[in-house]
């Protein structure tokens, strides 16, 4: 047994020495390989962490949100609906929700204005998200003006800046009182943006949703589980951009695995012949090739994954920033918590390391089985 181990060790040492001999070529190979893994692992880490974040955080999202659809688009809901909805069996409360968007032409930023369900700011004051505070250079106590629906500016005093740690939720929010928002947005007093329902039994969500649709055919209820599941679809592999990234990575990988697989250099072939001639069996030579492929694969995988980890969780996905930012001017720093999905990593491992190792062994098969007397000539 220890003989076998010793044999493996010596062949591995020999293989590593052989790799170091062609430092340039193998170095370039390692670099490309590691880069591919880096990109793929970065994408995997980023999307998984965001999905986990959404999953954990949105578990206290509204149980049912009731919207109204007119001409296929979202429209305000009539407050009058609330009375009828309240009488549905299982519904504890119905609260109208007011929120909307505001485009700031000066800073070219989109803000979300919202009347919070609990503890709204006092009349004349607002709470703003850390992103807004940053781009405007505004802090507590400052005055800030927004132009309302009638073209008239309205002045607000900033009460609080919402915490930086929640920026993935609150970066672009402006919280204000109901009266202020209605005045600002022009939404009539008998309407609201949508309703938020509280339900006694979570198992009843779908049933109540069905009842709502029957009661108001032009309504659309959205239940909490659907809200949470929305974020499973973000960064879906079918999204255009991710397909491009994955295809590019797959292509790069195929190209240089193919390069490996289509042949050994004359020097490599001669070396294998010599080894055969001095007494190495075919299995010894194939073992050497296997370790050669594995050494490069494992190193590249390790380097790529660890760099990706640093990239996403320490550098806040800096390289993806241009993509994730798009045209937004309000852009959260993606300070993500390092949730790891080992299943994904394992899949990445098997989809890259295994094919590469195989592509190293296959061309060697023929060369390794030649009679060594060819070396004599």
């Amino acid at each position, binding site marked *: 047994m220890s003989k076998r181990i010793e044999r493996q060790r010596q062949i591995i040492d020999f293989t590593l020495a052989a790799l170091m001999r062609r430092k340039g070529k193998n170095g370039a190979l390692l670099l490309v390989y590691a880069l591919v893994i880096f990109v793929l692992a970065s994408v995997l880490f980023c999307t998984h962490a965001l999905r986990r974040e959404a999953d954990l955080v949105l578990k206290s999202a509204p149980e049912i949100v009731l919207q109204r659809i007119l001409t296929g688009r979202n429209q305000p809901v009539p407050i009058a609906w609330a009375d009828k909805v309240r009488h549905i069996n299982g519904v504890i409360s119905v609260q109208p929700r007011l929120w909307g968007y505001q485009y700031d032409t000066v800073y070219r930023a989109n803000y979300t204005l919202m009347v919070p369900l609990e503890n709204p700011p006092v009349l004349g004051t607002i709470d703003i998200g850390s992103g807004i505070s940053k781009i405007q250079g505004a802090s507590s106590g400052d005055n800030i003006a927004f132009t309302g629906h009638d073209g008239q500016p309205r002045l607000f005093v900033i009460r609080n800046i919402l915490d930086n740690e929640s920026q*993935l*939720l609150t970066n*672009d929010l402006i919280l204000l009182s109901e009266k202020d928002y209605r005045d600002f947005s022009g939404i009539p007093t008998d309407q609201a943006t*949508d309703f938020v329902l509280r339900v006694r039994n979570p198992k009843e969500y779908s049933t109540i949703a069905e009842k709502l649709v029957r009661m108001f055919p032009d309504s659309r209820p959205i239940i909490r589980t659907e809200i949470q599941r*929305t974020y499973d679809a*973000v960064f879906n592999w079918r999204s255009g951009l991710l397909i491009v990234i994955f295809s590019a990575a797959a292509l790069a990988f195929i190209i240089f695995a193919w390069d490996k697989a289509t042949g050994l250099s004359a020097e490599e072939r001669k070396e294998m012949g010599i080894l055969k001639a001095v007494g190495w069996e075919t299995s010894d030579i194939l073992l050497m090739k296997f370790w050669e492929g594995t050494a490069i694969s494992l190193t590249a995988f390790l380097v790529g994954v660890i760099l990706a980890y640093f990239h996403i969780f320490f550098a806040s996905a800096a390289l993806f920033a241009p993509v994730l930012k798009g045209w937004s001017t309000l852009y959260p720093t993606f300070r993500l918590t390092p949730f790891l999905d080992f299943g994904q990593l394992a899949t990445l491992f098997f989809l890259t390391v295994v094919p590469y190792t195989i592509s190293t062994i296959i061309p060697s098969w023929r060369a390794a089985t030649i009679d060594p007397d060819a070396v004599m000539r």
Partner: protein
Amino acid sequence: MALFGMALHAEYNVKASAPVFARKVSIVRQLGLTDLCLFTEASYTRHISMTDMATPFQDSPATFEHFPTGALVSPPSHLVSNHVQKD
């Protein structure tokens, strides 16, 4: 071994972030939030779960995607299935 260190670091950080998440959960409840603030370009990228079928198509179903992050964001499943049901 480095991978192991990475896994440990991740584990530790995840556990340490529990109070932060508790606070975030409470914010979501108090404010009545439904979405993460990731992409503030357009309404349907900002409030992905609340969006309607028409908005991404803006002027016409045949128009290309206006916003870069729209290429990242898939329509939520409830939008597609509800729409199907209603028809």
